[in-house]
């Protein structure tokens, strides 16, 4: 992951400098600030303008839902054509007397079945998109609470207020950072292992 000094990271460091931590809690709070420093650019990547995050998050969720609807519509269109072709092929196969021709037609009918199987991607993708939308919404709620807390502190603390005002002035769309982090689960079970559990 490539790190950049953006206005949010700078703001976090400025806020951190306001506090003097006791020996017992300092290591935990150091870790907390390090975590937030790493997290903020990733969230900025998701929505570009961190200062407008609460406005941008709904747009991200809407874009995800829109992509899902478009994919579903396209899938149904493909299925319409596949079903029509399958019916036509079945009719041709039933009337075809020439063996080789019949075999070729049956091969094509098999391909139609494979297309239909492959279209299952739409449902699988839809579920992943739904999970992503839930994550985006949860992050939005959390960030709104965090900024509310900071603003409450800013009402009583001039130094924090200045930091927040500087942040609002500095925020830009350049804070997006590329990350190559991926999370991969390698503990999924195979169909053969499932069959073994059922004794098949």
């Amino acid at each position, binding site marked *: 992951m490539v790190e950049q000094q953006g206005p949010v990271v700078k703001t976090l460091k400025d806020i951190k400098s306001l506090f003097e931590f006791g020996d017992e809690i300092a290591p935990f709070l150091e870790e907390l600030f390090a975590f937030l420093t790493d997290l903020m650019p990733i969230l900025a990547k998701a929505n570009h303008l961190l200062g407008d995050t609460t406005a941008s998050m709904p747009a991200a969720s809407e874009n995800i839902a829109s992509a899902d609807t478009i994919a*579903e519509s396209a*899938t*149904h269109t493909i*299925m319409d054509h596949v*079903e029509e072709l399958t019916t036509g092929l079945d009719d041709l196969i039933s009337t075809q007397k020439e063996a080789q021709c019949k075999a070729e037609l049956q091969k094509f009918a098999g391909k139609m*079945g494979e297309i*239909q*199987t*492959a*279209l*299952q*991607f*739409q*449902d*699988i993708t*839809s*579920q992943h998109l739904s999970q992503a939308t839930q994550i985006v919404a949860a992050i939005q709620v959390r960030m709104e609470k965090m900024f509310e807390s900071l603003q409450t502190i800013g009402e009583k603390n001039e130094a924090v207020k200045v930091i927040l005002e500087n942040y609002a002035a500095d925020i830009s769309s350049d804070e997006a950072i590329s990350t190559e982090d991926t999370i991969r689960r390698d*503990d*999924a*079970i195979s*169909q053969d*292992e*499932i069959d073994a*559990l*059922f004794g*098949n």
Partner: protein
Amino acid sequence: MADKKVLFVEDSPTMRRIIANSLRQVGFNEIIEAENGVDALEKLEGRQVNLVVTDWNMPEMNGAELVKTLREMPPYAEVPIIMITTRGMQDDVITAMKLGVNGYIIKPFTPEILQDKLRAVLD
């Protein structure tokens, strides 16, 4: 498998279409389709079915809740149930087995896999 009646529960319109086609290909002519567990129980109305095929992740009542409910209803306590889902963790499979599922298929699947599981469960 001809003349057998199947209750098929799936919230995705795309998957309902694909799986219904697969069930017809293997000989099921009478398919009761439902969008979730609540819809499934309403459409059953106490009717006898030979098989239940259900997704897991669904709104209102998910597949696991539906299976648990069906197993507690005398007419459906022994009906074969196959779950077709994207949930691919061992814990999920074991949970489903404990609820009383007879077969478990991970999406995406081929018609041949469905046919194999149907034979294993119905024969």
